[in-house]
């Protein structure tokens, strides 16, 4: 076991981890932050997407121990985030989820897309979402929600 200290959703935390433990397992099992879902565990599905130092990251493709000294943000830490508030509303309005398994990853990736691009169109959103799998195949609603959120945020001056 090794000691790991990182910033987790704004708070400094220290835990003992096994080197083989992925960031995803660390978040779910040790920190009990279960918004981050694990689908494929080899980087194909995107369900486990979180932000590490502000960068979208597949938490199944990062060892927890690699995050020493870094800042990790999960969906739980974004309750009061202005972009996430808009995304949540549009996901609700556009019926952008069915079973909900992929939704945390979709939301984290959507926030990342909207942080890099102003008012992206549907084709751009589809390209950017190609690494997120929804096995209900509910992509249409998801794309609609992200485009609408982008439009709303694009109108307001960016914070």
């Amino acid at each position: 076991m090794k000691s790991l200290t990182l910033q987790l959703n704004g708070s400094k935390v220290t835990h003992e981890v096994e080197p083989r433990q992925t960031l995803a397992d660390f978040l779910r099992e040790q920190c009990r932050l279960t918004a981050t879902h694990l689908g494929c565990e080899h980087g194909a599905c995107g369900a486990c997407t979180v932000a590490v130092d502000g960068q979208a990251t597949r938490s199944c493709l990062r060892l927890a121990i690699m995050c020493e000294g870094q800042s990790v943000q999960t969906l739980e830490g974004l309750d009061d985030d202005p972009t996430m508030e808009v995304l949540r509303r549009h996901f609700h309005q556009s019926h952008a989820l069915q079973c909900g398994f992929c939704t945390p990853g979709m939301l984290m990736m959507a926030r990342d897309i909207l942080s890099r691009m102003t008012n992206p169109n549907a084709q751009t959103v589809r390209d950017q979402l190609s690494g997120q799998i929804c096995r209900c195949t509910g992509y249409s609603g998801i794309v609609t929600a992200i485009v609408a959120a982008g439009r709303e945020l694009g109108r307001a001056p960016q914070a």
Partner: protein
Amino acid sequence: MKAAAFDYAAPKTLAEASALLGSNGAATAALAGGQSLLPMLNLRLALPDLVVDLGRLEELKEIAATRTNIRVGALTTHAAIEDGKLPETFGGLMQKVASNISYRAVRNHGTIGGSVALADPASDWSGCLMALGAQVRIAGRKGTRSQPIGEFVLGQYSTSLAADEIIVGFDVPRPDAALRWGSFKVVRKSGAFANSIAFAVSHGRGGPAVVVLAAAADRPCLLPAVAERIQAGEKSEDVLRGAIAQDVKDVTKDDSYLMRLHTSTVLRAVREVEAK
């Protein structure tokens, strides 16, 4: 789908990293961005006793422009290249290549050095760097060395790296004339492994040209007959197809699908050069 147990070290100096990698042979794995190693660990395709995290080695993060070269540190991420963080983007070629690797969340951590060191035949960087004439800078217990990338990649998942050696970075020569380039990649789904990738580069008009086909054989290969036709300003599609057939026949053998596939990617890359 969980990794088997292993030890972990995150050395802060090259000498320390080299000693750790060299002491245990094949049972040690070097970790850069982890975007290929982590899936292999999770699937238990890789079963190292020790993982050496190279992420704290400052020498591998250097990005610099010298009079003749652009120095790209091994730990430079695909996302950094996509976002134009290199002092020269080679007319946009490296940005385009970076932006078509896997997905953004993977590009945020996957590194150019890790990609070349793994030498997956379907990867993008070794072929691209070959087209740009890059040298690989390598450090090990015996000191440092430099090798052209075409000689560095030996085959499928095979390079000239000794157990204790680490890629420090790449020296990519600055083009002496405006770079005209084309690249085309066939993937069944965006972000998936490629079935065929072509890079065509011409230094100015009538200057030296290089054409590389990747994801076709066990390592990227040069297409000298096609390069010669670009340099001569050849426009005839029949002549270009003939040159491609001559260059790729050893790769495609008698498979007509592969011949059409690779002909198509190379032709599109060549057309893109001509349009510039």
